[in-house]
């Protein structure tokens, strides 16, 4: 056995090292009941995670794609870019979790929070780098089991437990469908390696049924429309920080893997037609239905849930174009969506922690009391809606361009119409903050340094990624047509 192949897994190994260090740190420095105050709080995990991100991203420029462990594990520079995107998102989530974790009931649980978040990230790494369905499945479950624990993290709050129950039951259901699909694909092709499946499948009914179940299973994870029913409840019940993590990171990783697998395994003509038609209608339904439901929400977290479903529709739009361009558009869209959404969630967390308010009607008159937060929230919402100077416009533009080139002008048109609808409901919040008056607005407060750092990072992303295609071209340098 050649032990040097472990080096290809440097991203996973260094993340594992971070997890182990945090585990020991939690053991040694865990706050006890008497002194009360936690010894390490946010600082250590953030520093370690930053180190891990930088160390793994720097050498990716000159490295080549390769396989390890007999093709179970695949490594390409593009996957490193994707992992770095997820790292940055996790970093922002950890930063904005500070205030929430400093609550008295959460102080003893802060070590668990970081471990669960990082194990979820580790699962996504394996899922992204998989070259075999078994590896993919283990990564998927490693990502979704700790995620359940995160959703039910507020043990004493009933909504949190209820959200956790709904999440785990539907995660199990979708895993079972996914597994049944994989088993049928195995029956039709006789292999589970992504590279070999493509040549073995001939478009028989068995393989089409397997494909449908497979897309259904992943559709639950990305929360596309016919499979989205758990999303709003889970997002509402979960702690706000976890909702931010759930809406961006897990969704993005699953969408990337869906693109990879569809293009590697099911790209031949007969199967291509069947999944392409299916995805077409799924995208139309996701974007439209979620937009219509988002208009009537009053809870901001539920609102963001439906916004996230519709954004997932745009994300998957890039899959329709299975070339290098589609992949670049997907990763760039995810990057921009991540900073905009996490920025909005950082504002929401900050307001919820300081005033306990989460309804849209609570945000009335926010501009009078907290003008800076209101302004940052506006920037993020504009970016989510895709208004030109901000990054969201360019990411949507690249996705539309990819889908248009792939030959779906009608789909792009429907998506464009929906962008206008989404602008309406994003502006509802802006209107509440700036124009509406309130008798009891949220009192002015100053958020803590970590939250401010998270906000700065997100807003920087929203503005910087908007300055033209430098980042897009940079990502394009790594992408590959499958």
């Amino acid at each position, binding site marked *: 056995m050649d032990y040097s192949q472990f080096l290809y897994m440097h991203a996973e190994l260094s993340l594992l090292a971070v997890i182990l260090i945090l585990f020991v740190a939690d053991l040694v420095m865990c706050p006890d009941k008497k002194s009360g105050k936690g010894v390490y709080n946010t600082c250590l995990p953030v520093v370690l995670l930053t180190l891990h991100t930088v160390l793994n991203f720097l050498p990716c420029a000159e490295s080549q794609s390769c396989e390890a462990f007999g093709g179970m594990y695949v490594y390409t520079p593009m996957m490193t870019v994707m992992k770095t995107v997820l790292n940055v998102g996790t970093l922002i989530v950890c930063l904005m979790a500070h205030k929430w974790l400093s609550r008295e009931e959460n102080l003893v649980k802060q070590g668990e929070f970081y471990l669960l978040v990082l194990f979820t990230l580790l699962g996504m790494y394996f899922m992204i780098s998989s070259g075999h369905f*078994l590896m993919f499945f283990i990564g998927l479950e490693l990502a979704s089991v700790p995620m*359940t624990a995160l959703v039910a993290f507020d043990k004493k709050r*009933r909504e949190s*437990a209820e959200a956790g*129950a709904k999440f785990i039951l539907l995660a*199990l259901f979708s895993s079972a469908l996914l597994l049944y699909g994989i088993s049928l694909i195995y029956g039709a092709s006789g292999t589970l390696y992504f590279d070999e499946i493509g040549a073995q499948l001939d478009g028989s009914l068995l393989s089409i049924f397997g494909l449908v179940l497979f897309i259904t299973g992943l559709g639950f994870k990305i929360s596309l429309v016919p499979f989205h029913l758990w999303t709003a409840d889970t997002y509402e019940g979960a702690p706000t920080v976890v909702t931010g993590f759930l809406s961006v990171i897990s969704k993005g990783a699953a969408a990337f893997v869906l693109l990879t697998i569809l293009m590697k395994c099911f790209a031949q003509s007969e199967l291509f037609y069947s999944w392409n038609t299916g995805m077409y209608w799924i995208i139309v339904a996701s974007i439209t239905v979620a937009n219509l439901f988002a208009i009537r929400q009053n809870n901001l977290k539920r609102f963001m849930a439906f916004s996230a479903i519709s954004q997932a529709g745009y994300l998957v739009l890039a899959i329709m174009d299975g070339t290098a361009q589609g992949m670049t558009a997907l990763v760039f869209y995810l990057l921009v969506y991540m900073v905009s959404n996490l920025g909005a969630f950082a504002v929401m967390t900050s307001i919820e922690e300081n005033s306990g308010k989460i309804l849209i009607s609570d945000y009335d008159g926010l501009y009078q009391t907290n003008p800076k937060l209101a302004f940052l929230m506006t920037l993020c919402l504009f970016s989510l809606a895709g208004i030109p100077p901000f990054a969201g416009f360019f990411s949507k533009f690249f996705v539309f361009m990819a889908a248009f080139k792939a030959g779906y002008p009608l789909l792009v048109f429907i998506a464009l119409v929906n962008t206008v609808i989404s602008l309406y409901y994003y502006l509802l919040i802006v209107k509440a903050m700036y124009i509406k008056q309130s008798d009891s607005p949220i009192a002015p407060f100053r958020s803590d340094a970590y939250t401010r750092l998270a906000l700065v990072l997100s807003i920087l992303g929203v503005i910087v990624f908007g300055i033209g295609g430098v980042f897009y071209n940079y990502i394009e340098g790594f992408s590959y047509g499958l």
Partner: protein
Amino acid sequence: MIQIEYLLVVSAVMMFAGVFGFLTRRSTLAILLSVELMLNATDLNFAVFNRMLYPEGYEGYFFALFSIAISAAESAIAIAIMINIYRMVKNIQAGELEQMKW
């Protein structure tokens, strides 16, 4: 020797009995049982395909083993959440999980 169709029919019936149970049961524990039925159907499928169609390798058997282990882990965390809910509302009927709606 038993033909492959019989075995596949058994697994398909198990699978869709599980789906039916998942959609109709009122108790969350019964829902969990239904999901286990679905997962077992997939394990059976893997073993059958491996034994009958591709006996030269062991991919299907190994997949079944891993999926049993992973589904056990998932059920454990699901039951932990159910116990937590039971402590709060003294009931684990699915109808109790309706604090949040539309």
